[in-house]
């Protein structure tokens, strides 16, 4: 190393006075700036995490009350005038018919008016008679007695009980509370019912089932295709222009906005192939196209991680290339592929936009029976409820979000568990 600076120039320079005031000040300034920078980094991460906490807490705060409902005690002094029912018949095979023709809505309304005073009918949900029917079905002997049944309250009373109601509803609820005729109970309807126009009767089961069916179609299509494509690209593909094109399109598909897949589904599956609208089949096919690149990319990484010595050993004892891959490489790579698949499926499960495009935003009041029935999915249901003007839908929307987040959390936990359990360091 030759230095352009003459050697004696170092000797002539006065040495830096590190203890001097100017230098001490400079060092202090640099340390302060160091501290500021570090705090800035910490602050930004705390801010991001704080936002997440704020989001989760506000969803919990809004949604937890969606899992409960207000019930109003109504006294039934059987027999009640408009009811035509023979308790003996309830044991027979025509029990359902007897119950259906017993005019229970009118009976319930009358009992509510009697127990709760004038306007009592408006305090209970319009579907409250279903609870009465279930009670009679469960125990027909109550038809000879006077019983107190707790019926779901109307949306107004329910809102008032949760502190968001109109003044008149608040007053009505206060009166009920005073007489001890109101109580809070777990809202089982929310987990077992489907969409409805009345916020007290909505449930997520229909949307949840739609999500499951859609996910089933998605996985049934994208998992085999994704794994086979990953195997081909990683193990057999010759280096040529075709392979490059396949790789480029897979990487691009992984970055295409999801709504574009919705447009593809609309143009090809619905308009060209005339598949049924709003069906989990079409939703699943659209999502499969979206999930496939994720599975291919995860699969290739997992396959790449299997050491070549395993392949060499298998080839060395006479296995054919196909046997090497299907007997040795694939089983070893499968945990990694599964992890990627679950993460891809979780992403597809939270996806909304493409499904709006193919019409899965209809009002569906019955859970789908198969993959060709009209259905909706959980995120779309959240979107639909968020559009409702009625205030009582706010807590239902947030409650549905809690369910969705819990489900996604579960899926991701399984993925992490799989990764930790089966991860091998070669």
């Amino acid at each position: 190393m030759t230095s352009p600076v003459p050697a004696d120039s170092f000797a002539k320079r006065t040495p830096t006075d590190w203890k001097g005031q100017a230098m001490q000040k400079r060092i202090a300034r640099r340390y302060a700036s160091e501290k500021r920078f570090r705090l800035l980094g910490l602050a930004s991460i705390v801010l991001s995490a704080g936002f997440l906490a704020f989001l989760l807490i506000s969803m919990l705060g809004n949604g937890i009350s969606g899992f409960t409902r207000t019930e109003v005690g109504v006294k039934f002094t059987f027999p009640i005038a408009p009811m035509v029912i023979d308790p003996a018949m309830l044991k027979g095979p025509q029990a359902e018919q007897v119950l259906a023709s017993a005019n229970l809505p009118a009976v319930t309304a009358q009992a509510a008016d009697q127990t709760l005073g004038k306007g009592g009918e408006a305090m209970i949900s319009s579907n409250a008679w279903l609870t009465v029917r279930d009670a009679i079905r469960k125990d027909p002997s109550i038809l000879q007695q006077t019983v107190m049944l707790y019926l779901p309250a109307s949306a107004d009373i329910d809102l008032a009980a949760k502190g968001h109601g109109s003044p008149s509803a608040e007053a009505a609820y206060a009166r009920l509370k005073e007489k001890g005729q109101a109580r809070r109970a777990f809202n089982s309807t929310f987990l077992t019912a489907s969409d409805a126009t009345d916020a007290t009767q909505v449930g997520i089961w229909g949307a949840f089932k739609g999500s499951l069916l859609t996910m089933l179609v998605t996985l049934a299509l994208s998992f085999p295709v994704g794994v086979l494509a990953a195997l081909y690209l990683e193990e057999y593909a010759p280096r040529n222009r075709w392979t490059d094109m396949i790789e480029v399109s897979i990487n691009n598909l992984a970055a295409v906005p999801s709504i574009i897949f919705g447009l593809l589904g609309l143009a090809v599956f619905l308009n060209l192939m005339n598949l049924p609208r709003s069906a989990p089949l079409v939703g699943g096919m659209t999502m499969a196209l979206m999930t496939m690149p994720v599975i291919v990319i995860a699969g290739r990484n997992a396959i790449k991680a299997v050491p070549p010595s395993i392949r060499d050993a298998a080839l060395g004892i006479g296995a054919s290339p196909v046997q090497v891959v299907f007997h040795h490489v694939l089983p070893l790579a499968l945990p990694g592929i599964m992890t990627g698949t679950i993460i891809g499926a979780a992403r597809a499960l939270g996806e909304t936009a493409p499904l709006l495009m193919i019409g899965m935003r209809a009002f569906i009041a019955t859970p789908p029976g198969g993959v060709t029935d009209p259905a909706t999915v959980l995120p779309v249901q959240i979107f639909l409820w968020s559009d409702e003007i009625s205030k009582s839908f706010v807590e239902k929307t947030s409650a549905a979000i809690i369910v969705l987040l819990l489900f996604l959390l579960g899926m991701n936990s399984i993925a992490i568990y799989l990764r930790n359990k089966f991860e091998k360091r070669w």
Partner: protein
Amino acid sequence: MDVSGFAITILILGLGLVAWLSARARALRLAHAGQSPETSPSSGDRKARRAFLHSLPSYHGWYAAIWALVPSLLFLAVWTSIMPGLVTNRVLEAPAAASLPPDAFTRGAILSEARSIAQGKARSAFDPRSGALVEPYRDAQSFFSTGGGVIALILAFAGAAYAFTRIRPDFRARTRVERLVMMALLIASLIAIITTVGIVASLLWESIRFFSHVNPIDFLFGTKWSPQSAALGYGNENAFGAVPLFWGTIFIGAIIAMAVAIPLGLMSAIYLTQYARPAARAWLKPILEVLAGVPTVVYGYFAALTIAPAMRDLAVAIGISNASSESALAAGLVMGVMIIPFVSSMADDSINSVPQSMRDGSLAMGATPSETIRQVLIPAALPGVVGGVLLAVSRAIGETMIVVMAAGLAANLTLNPFASVTTVTTQIVQLLTGDQEFDSAKTLAAFALGLVLFIVTLLLNIVALQVVKRYREAYE
């Protein structure tokens, strides 16, 4: 077709199983027969017996099963897709169809009603003319589904029989089966190309139809967007100017969201890679990743329910009276938060791939860690960070649910973040979820917008990947 089709599929699958078992058994028998009693000890060394077969018996089984299953199932799939057309043709030839009105629309309605009655989906006929067609429909349906089923079964039998006759000790069953497996692998990987082609073709096709109604120049450079008035027939010429949508998309996705995501994401990545202790890093990184895992519909609801009213109150508090409750700011802020983990993980990768020697050199010269980061690491990692930001922008402008739920529908060209703007994705959803027929200029406009979105995100991705790739090469 539903029930019988299912039954026939099961039957064919069963046949495949039988073919597998019997072909395998036959191959095993051949192996035994090929063994002369002197050379084979009676104890039955299985490996010695198999030495006479070219392929393992199970490959012979698979060969037969493939011959039994693949042709017949392919035929069944094709048959199911063309059967409705065949059935309708036969019904129209029936004498009862002679009285049908020539008008295609009523004709279609009557036919579909008759079909749903014949399939048991509907009870009784609304139109008496369709009632007369129920019987011909049922006949045609059972004729064609029985015919298809019989042909499929014959195909399965014929395939299995053909494969069965080919079993010889020297028959190369494994080679054939493996060739088919390789074909399946190739087809699976071609699906990615088919999907890409499908996206481009469907977007282009519908966009070309749109541009036959609307001049592309007016679409790309017009400043007035009011598809509603076009749908009502007030003239098409100037209603589809998409500039306000492009501006809204850039304003929310590339300006406001990035103003949140770049500083927070970058600083988080710096803190995580340079300052945080490993234990803290193990906790903080997953927390950021959870932000990326929250579904966008949840962010959208949060933006609309919590952030948007807060932003309006803020605007009113600082004296902006015409603040919208669907402000660009609310949607942009929440979108920025959604993008943070994305920027952070990209920055994390590029900072980590700066060679350790550069960092050590700077620290050894007496620079503080923050000086090292600002003057050595960030400049060195900049291409990677820029690539990451470009990817994040492409993600943000393609994001749909946040803007659908929190941004407005008014196509304004404004710089005011408290005003309402609309985006490309919002308008695609708006245009396609209405009730109008599919071929109107309004629905086709959604595909033109989709095409623009696709091209822009594609370009951003290609550029970003190029930048990142070149940067990686510089340090490897």
